[in-house]
């Protein structure tokens, strides 16, 4: 019944390589998404009206369409207008641009929770708007955002599973090759599922640890999916 466990022996090396690529995709996508997401959140909270609208539209569009479609537009669509990214670059970019929209929303939530009062307080002691953001609001907002934000790395890790469709050699691609070699799709994908689960658990434990470390005593906001 559990013969599929034997696939770890036969394809262990391939799975390990694929898992490495999957983690790399997650890390880079997350990093791009964080930088862009932070900019988007700041634009939405403190930018001029038109910038707020641009950021809002970006978030709505990237949250309102499937990642797979975004990936195909970037990889197969853009070369038509002369922009051809490599497979990995297209994957990083699609994951990053997509994740930015979600991260922006998490960060916006916590920036709003810090509230206008602190902005006034910061301004009243002589800080400029950007100084207040940089030294007063962000240090608190980033820590406050962590519990809800920590959904994103895990969600992104699972989301990366579509990049094999543009021929990136991630864990899914390795799984597909093993499945094609053995014709046992069920067994191989059960093994692959287990590898994903282990990665998700490890990531979850790491994030819980970070949450504890960075918690601001006495300050909390509701967390959601």
């Amino acid at each position, binding site marked *: *019944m*559990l*013969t*599929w466990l034997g696939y770890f022996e036969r394809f262990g090396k391939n799975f390990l390589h694929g898992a490495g690529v999957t983690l790399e995709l997650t890390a880079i996508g997350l990093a791009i998404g964080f930088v862009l997401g932070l900019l988007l959140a700041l634009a939405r909270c403190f930018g001029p009206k038109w910038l707020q609208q641009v950021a809002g539209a970006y978030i709505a569009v990237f949250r309102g369409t499937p990642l797979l479609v975004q990936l195909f537009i970037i990889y*197969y669509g853009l*070369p038509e207008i002369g922009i*051809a990214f*490599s*497979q990995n670059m297209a994957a990083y970019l699609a994951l990053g641009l997509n994740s930015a929209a979600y991260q922006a929303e998490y960060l916006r939530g916590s920036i709003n929770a810090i509230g206008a009062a602190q902005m006034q307080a910061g301004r009243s002691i002589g800080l400029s708007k950007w100084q207040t953001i940089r030294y007063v609001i962000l240090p608190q907002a980033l820590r406050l955002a962590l519990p809800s934000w920590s959904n994103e790395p895990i969600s992104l890790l699972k989301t990366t599973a579509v990049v*094999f*469709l*543009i*021929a990136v*050699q991630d864990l899914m*691609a390795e799984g*597909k*090759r093993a*499945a*094609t*070699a053995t*014709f*046992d*799709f*069920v*067994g191989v994908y*059960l093994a692959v599922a287990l590898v994903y689960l282990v990665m998700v658990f490890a990531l979850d434990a790491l994030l819980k640890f970070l949450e504890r470390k960075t918690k601001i005593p006495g300050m909390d906001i509701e967390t959601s999916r």
Partner: protein
Amino acid sequence: MKKYFLLVVALVLVASMLVGCSSEPKSVLDKINEAKKVVVGTSADYPPYEFLDEAGNKTGFDIDLMTEIAKRMGVELEWVDMPFDSLVAAVDSGKLDMSISCFNYDEERDKTVDFSTAYYTTEDAFVVNSTFTGSVVKPEDVANYKVGVQSGTVQDSWLTDNLVTPGLLPEANLSRYERVDQAALDLANGRIEVLMADYVPVQALVAQNPDLTVVYHGELSTGPINIVLPDGDTALKTEVDRIIKELQDEGFIDQLAVKYFSE
């Protein structure tokens, strides 16, 4: 309480338990005749064997051939379009009654499914785009370049077994695509330098895109092409083989070759 636990364990492992329980007492032929319908899988990305015309309808050499076979079996034909590398598993698991998708005989495949008698013979080809400055004199030369192939094809196995496994072609330089038209697109876009595929579809690609050139063709992984049938189902195989033989004798297949390959 223990009951709940068992329930969830069953849910999680239900798939693994189902592995290996595919006993098949009845011939698929009976099922086809009862339902008056044959379910056939293909990956419609391989002109001129199987592809979509302007209006989005399936057409091609294999498509016409299968349509005629179904007609002679006296049943309706239902197409399922799915990724090429899932077709064999889909026939094996009973998703499909059979599959026609320019399948070459392959030992690994033969372990899980059966093959009909051959209905045509093919070759492999390497194709490059106009910016290619390298040279491919013998097949092994492609190991020096970025190569693309459709995942799960005999060409994929050939590249893996003869170039990747011996260490000639770095794994990172071989891109395996879900569809061959995606690989062709990437060749045109310069993301890969050489595409390995069946010679006939490659000629169609070259005709469509003047930037592409065939640099080599010959029998490496290919050879006779067959219809993929469920394993050990002799009744179905006999029937399909009989019809293929009939169509060969009548010259139907030669006419198809003229129509699609202009041979």
